[in-house]
């Protein structure tokens, strides 16, 4: 029966100030029930303050075949990382 329900991707915000993070997926007949199911499946151990659900079919994903052209060019460009700066102690954690 569950396979007849559409799939939803679930995003949970764990604390104030943090962003929502993808935690998994579930099946539900509509958005409202998806929120309820997400509450029961993913927040019952006090993990969440806010829930987003998105129909899985609405997510456009990059193709693994394009991984080469998408990601490999950045591997050799270490100068794009801010690793050549001395960060003053007073700044603290960044």
């Amino acid at each position, binding site marked *: 029966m569950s396979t007849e329900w559409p799939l939803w991707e679930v995003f949970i915000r764990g604390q104030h100030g943090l962003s929502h993070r993808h935690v998994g997926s579930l099946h539900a007949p509509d958005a409202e029930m998806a929120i309820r199911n997400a509450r*029961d*499946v993913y927040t*019952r151990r006090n993990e969440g303050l806010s829930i987003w659900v998105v129909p899985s079919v609405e997510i456009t994903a990059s193709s693994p075949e394009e991984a080469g052209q998408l990601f490999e060019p950045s591997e050799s460009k270490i100068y794009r990382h801010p690793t050549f700066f001395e960060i003053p102690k007073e700044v603290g954690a960044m």
Partner: protein
Amino acid sequence: MMDPFVTFCLRMGDNALILAQRTGEWCGHAPALEEDIAFANMGLDLIGQTQLWLKLGGEAEGKGRSADDLAFLRTERQFTNCQLVEQPNVDFAHALMRQYLFDAWHLPMLDGLTQSSDERVRAVSAKVIKEVRYHIDRSRDLVIGLGDGTDESRARMQGALDELWPFTADLLASDEIDDDLTARGVIPDPAPVIEAFNAETAATFAAATLTVPHTGLTRTGGRNGIHTEHMGFILAEMQYLQRTYPGVSW
């Protein structure tokens, strides 16, 4: 007659305990993984509520009985839950309808109890009502979704309603114990609770295209220890360990 306040606590606790036992039976058997977890969560909420009410009842009684003693060492006639909650699961429609009818009474009852003249009752009901608000949002949505659903789901929901509706009389019943507590402001007047139950169920069943049966049949007695044939089996399973190995703990 037992102390009215103790009886009230036992009635609240026994309702939650026996419904939790029925709800827990779905664990690993619900029609979808998501419903399975939701029902199990709800069952655990109800166990937590049982602990609060039975603990309060045991303390008020003053005979040193703990919530566990009250749950595991009373016999069938000493349980005061309404007959609705002991009705078998049968199928998902029955379990869901039973849950919804219970929630439709539980929420306005708790709403009244948060205004209780007794501080302990206010504290317990303030905690419990948050869980029950969620329970009814969930059960109401599913009753509407499945009632106003396919021919099959509608027929099953209507069948469950026909069978379970007579038991709502037990849920809404009141006696001299309630009168005494109402007069002292410990529990709410039954009239607005019944009114809220009627308004809630009328709106939901209209949206769900379900019809309340007008047979006039009513089943009562659970609150005074008169139970249906299912009750003994629930207790046999629930109390087996404590009866077989008295005092065992782990």
